[in-house]
């Protein structure tokens, strides 16, 4: 049990895929324009990450190393399409707000990176926990970034206007440059916090 908690903390803070490892940048920057997008994208990515980690760690002994990337990515793409179809059929409104981002999950580097680095080397349970940890880490970082960008860039949080009518939102923050800028500052702040926490612990 102790190892699982460590893995979760590791995925959320010390080894956060977005803020520390800096993978999964494309969906992070693309979908962090509003909080509900971020939550939807984070949970969808987490779901695919957990399922693909389980399946890949099950198959890890059968896949020859030369075709490992092709096999992993086909499994991941399969899960994403299944998720997309199921959402369109049974959760139509969520699928509308997330429609464009679901195919983006296939090329979310986190999933292949975790499959390649972790799931292909460890047991099923450990890989599932790692998928959960990395998924939570990804969602946590995404929501953090999305709330910053939405508050400054659109003056709302989860769609609720905060500053009344006369607030002139900084639209650049919601556009492309804002993504890079806010993520840069967020990672800098995160590194300072982690250094402080590590400093106090050692």
């Amino acid at each position: 049990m102790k190892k699982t908690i460590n893995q979760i903390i590791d995925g959320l803070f010390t080894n956060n895929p977005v803020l520390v490892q800096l993978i999964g940048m494309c969906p992070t920057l693309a979908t962090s324009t509003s909080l509900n997008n971020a939550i939807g994208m984070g949970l969808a990515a987490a779901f695919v990450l957990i399922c693909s980690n389980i399946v890949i760690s099950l198959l890890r002994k059968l896949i020859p190393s030369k075709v490992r990337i092709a096999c992993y990515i086909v499994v991941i793409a399969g899960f994403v399409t299944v998720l997309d179809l199921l959402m369109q059929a049974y959760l139509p409104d969520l699928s509308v707000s997330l429609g464009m981002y679901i195919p983006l999950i296939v090329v979310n580097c986190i999933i292949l990176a975790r499959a390649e680095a972790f799931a292909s080397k460890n047991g099923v349970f450990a890989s599932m926990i790692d998928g959960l940890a990395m998924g939570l880490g990804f969602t946590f970082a995404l929501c953090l970034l999305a709330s910053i960008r939405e508050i400054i860039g659109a003056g709302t949080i989860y769609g609720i206007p905060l500053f009344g009518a006369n607030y002139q939102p900084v639209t650049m923050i919601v556009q492309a440059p804002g993504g890079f800028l806010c993520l840069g500052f967020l990672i800098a702040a995160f590194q300072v916090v982690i250094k402080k926490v590590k400093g106090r612990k050692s």
Partner: protein
Amino acid sequence: MTFASILSLSLAAILVQNFIFVKFLGICPFLGVSKKTDTAVGMGLAVIFVMTVASSVTYIVNEFVLVKLDLMYMQTVVFILIIASLVQFVELFLMKMIPSLYKALGIYLPLITTNCAVLGVALLNVTNQYNFIESVLYACMSGVGFTIAIILFSSVREHLEYAKYPKAFEGFPIALVTASLLSIAFMGFQGLSIF
């Protein structure tokens, strides 16, 4: 395919809708490999090659297989299988022919597979209903756009080594802030279109 439409398509792919600074596709290798300009050039060329070949193969497969058999939902899986196999092939090719570039690219070569730009361009060719020549041209030009962006960025990053900035911004944060400034510059191109 008049010359003007070729020009406007390439202009759009390289400047107006640059894959990195405007469309946010292909950021992981963009941040990872841009520490030194020579690896950045190597990565850029590999991406151009994979993008061009991938989108020509995906166009053919999509046009003659998926559309004919009405299997549109299989698009993502088929495209990503094609791209993954192509990248694996490039990996084998580089390991044998240019080992130094292979070692320099390291982990980022398999990550080209998940490079959103390559799959992105394949899917965009389908949504924009480009014909064969247009898709190959669009893919090649977006690859060129990717390479220009990564070379621009890596040269700036090499100068960052000797700049004064707060310790907390060490490494990626300062790179991201620089990328946002470059992205503002690219936003300036948005109004530009020939026809």
